[in-house]
């Protein structure tokens, strides 16, 4: 219960989760987890997929975005004549060239309309549809995947970092670890705190200087030498995946770019890029059997807002990388940015359930049957046609 960071917990859980789904009996599956590896990175705060993978070929882009997502003329790298890679992700260019990086530009969970980070993340990590009460979601879909895998042990799946990873919580035993370093205070956190402190003169005055100091402090009160927590997460994940671990998950927070997105998003994209490269470097020859999926709870508004940022939206991008990926391409269709194409008149229209990509990847990598994926891992999901995510 207490320390997720000090103990490599065999986390058979307390007070959480019902009995395993009847379909989830490892006996039913012949193939072992084998050599395949899956890394799921949750991008908390809602990444702006339109800025990460800029659809400069869409003539409406300039109309909806004036200072953001400016395309190849302003430093983004042309990917395929339609999409361009944000400069913050340029570190991943070699992967794109090697066919080890791909993205689905317009996906989402079934979550609609309320646009709450917590609920959106709960649904993304629970992997369920809209028919279940979000309050009652306790287990994550990676845990249900684990239950369906034969020969799993306490080290088959790892959650890494101080952040709560519901995606891996559930009856199957898993492990967790967190590095000493602390999560950075994101620009959005600072904005919200500034708002909260504004009405209290003492806190308003001390708050601004406090946030500058806090950015350099650890939660234990020591000064942090540098801000490289994401590398620590990736390196630890690679180290475990090189041994007995096959599933690793962690999160990167700080994507909620309501204001000054041009200043704030590059840093996050660079972190994501460095994280993926650190996984590749750390995995060495195992990179070839690895799939990395970076998922976010929802996308952001198509239009820029009044503070040079974007607000909570619906459709967003899924990033996939790894030696096992059939990359170098955009996956799935593009809905368009014309007024009539938008969801609710404001958001990118999601064209496919993000869970379908994850399900097909698990089907290919771990040999999990489609019925198990559609009924137990992602209850109620229609996987549809195979996007052939993997090579």
């Amino acid at each position: 219960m207490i320390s997720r960071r000090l103990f490599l917990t065999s986390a058979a859980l307390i007070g959480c989760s019902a009995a395993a789904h009847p379909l989830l009996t490892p006996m039913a599956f012949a193939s072992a987890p084998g050599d395949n590896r899956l890394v799921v990175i949750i991008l908390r705060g809602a990444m702006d997929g339109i800025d990460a993978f800029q659809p400069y070929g869409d003539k409406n882009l300039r109309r909806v975005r004036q200072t953001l997502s400016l395309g190849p003329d302003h430093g983004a790298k042309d990917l395929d004549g339609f999409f361009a890679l944000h400069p913050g992700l340029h570190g991943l260019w070699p992967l794109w060239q090697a066919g080890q990086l791909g993205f689905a530009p317009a996906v989402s969970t079934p979550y609609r309309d309320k646009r709450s980070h917590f609920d959106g993340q709960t649904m993304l990590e629970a992997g369920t549809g809209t028919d279940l009460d979000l309050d009652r979601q306790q287990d994550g879909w990676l845990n249900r995947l684990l239950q369906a895998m034969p020969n799993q042990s306490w080290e088959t799946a790892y959650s890494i970092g101080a952040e709560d990873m519901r995606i891996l919580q559930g009856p199957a035993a898993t492990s967790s670890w967190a590095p000493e370093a602390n999560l950075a205070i994101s620009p959005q956190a600072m904005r919200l705190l500034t708002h909260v402190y504004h009405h209290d003169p003492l806190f308003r005055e001390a708050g601004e200087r406090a946030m500058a100091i806090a950015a350099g402090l650890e939660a234990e009160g020591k000064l942090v030498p540098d801000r490289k927590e994401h590398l620590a997460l990736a390196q630890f994940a690679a180290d475990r995946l090189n041994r007995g671990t096959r599933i690793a998950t962690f999160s990167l927070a700080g994507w909620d770019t309501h204001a000054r997105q041009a200043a704030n998003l590059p840093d996050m994209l660079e972190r994501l890029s460095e994280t993926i490269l650190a996984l590749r470097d750390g995995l060495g020859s195992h990179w070839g059997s690895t799939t990395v999926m970076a998922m976010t709870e929802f996308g952001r508004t198509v239009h820029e807002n009044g503070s040079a940022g974007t607000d909570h939206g619906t459709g967003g991008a899924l990033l996939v990388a790894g030696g096992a990926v059939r990359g170098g391409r955009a996956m799935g269709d593009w809905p368009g940015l014309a007024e009539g194409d938008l969801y609710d008149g404001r958001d990118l229209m999601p064209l496919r359930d993000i869970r379908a990509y994850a399900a097909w990847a698990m089907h290919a990598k771990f040999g999990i049957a489609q019925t198990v994926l559609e009924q137990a891992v992602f209850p109620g999901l229609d996987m549809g046609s195979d996007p052939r995510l993997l090579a």
Partner: protein
Amino acid sequence: MSLPYDQLAAIRLGFGLSPRLTGPADPAGVAASVAAAMSAGDSVYMDGVRQMQIELRRLLLIARKGGQVEDEAYRSHRRGMNDRYLRAIVDRFARIMDDPSGFGERLVAFWSSHFAVRGGAPHANLMTAALVDEAIRPHLTGRFADLMFAAETHPAMLIYLDQVGSVGPNSVSARRNPDKVMGLNENLAREMIELHSLGVGADYTQQDVEALARLLTGLTYSARQPGVFRPAQAEPGADTVLGRSYGGDSATLNDIRDVIEDLASHQATASHIARKLAIHFIADDPPPSVVERLANVFRDTAGDLGAINLTLAEAPELATQYRQKLRQPHEFLAASLRSLGLTGDDIRGFSRKQIRQVLLNPMAVMGQPWARPNGPDGWPEEAEAWGTPQGLAMRINWAMGQPSRLVRQLPDPREFLTMALGEAASEPLRWAVPRAESRSQGIALVLASADFNRR
């Protein structure tokens, strides 16, 4: 804003709300709840501290004889003492987690600051814990005079305020050792009047301080000798303090008890203690009404702390002066852990490293190193002393970084907001929390907010 009484009392007189516990619903229940803090927990007693101190000295001498500054046996014993001290700290936090009310533990903190001592060496640290368990806890609902006597004559106080070095110039000891320089030390005498009873503004003179210092001679501490009174060190003769003469025959501890009884029941003491309680529990600048009420009860009941506690619990100023106080770092950490639903056993299960990382290091950066106040006047009360950029920065960082490491599954921040603050969350915080990027950030906003850091 009108909070139900149980929530109001938990926030203002305790360590805030808990998802596990509900506090008493009326003032009588809150006052009665103090009893829980009077029972023995994982308590530290001077008998044990003496033995540990004697053994440490013995091991040091053995090591020195062996030509070493210190050896493994010595180091191991010292480690054991330090671990015992950490357990005492953990016990303080653990009791708060499991106390539905929290008022008793807040009183423990209040009186520990009123009778402030400071540790340092392993045995001195343990003595600060023993003072809390032996002198303060048993008297939380008793007479102020008994509390004061227990605190003033506790070895931790005698060492901290230099009473152990105060010897009557004409005492038996001084006459036996003419070569040694022995004399009075006024420190304890001065603070007894100035800080612990009448207050600095009261009507007393330097002559009263010196007379009290002479009267206190004989009071001392040595690990090897039982008790705290050595007649041989006492200055002979009667002494007049605040117009009344004490002692004269052979010196006894009773003379000291007599003078403490009188100091404790002095009119100025009633006002001073009433004002300090009001400043701590009600507001940095409390309304005169509540100070007067507390002072009257103090006078009318001859310092009955049970009656004082009830007066505090009944005070309408709890509601009218809501959020006028800033939670001290100790309260902030305890309230945070409590709001996250940790149990006493969770805290007792902390490793040494966790005790430092979750509790002690953050408290020090927030400006409240455990049991090490700057002076005998204890911890400051004014909000400005705690709401510094550095202190607030550490609160923000703790709020951002620790909860997700301590709790298996963080609650929904929107529910946590209501759980931690009742119906009293401010509009800006209600607006901000649902907009946090993640659960952990949402929880952090609540814990770092002015709403939560005030009480």
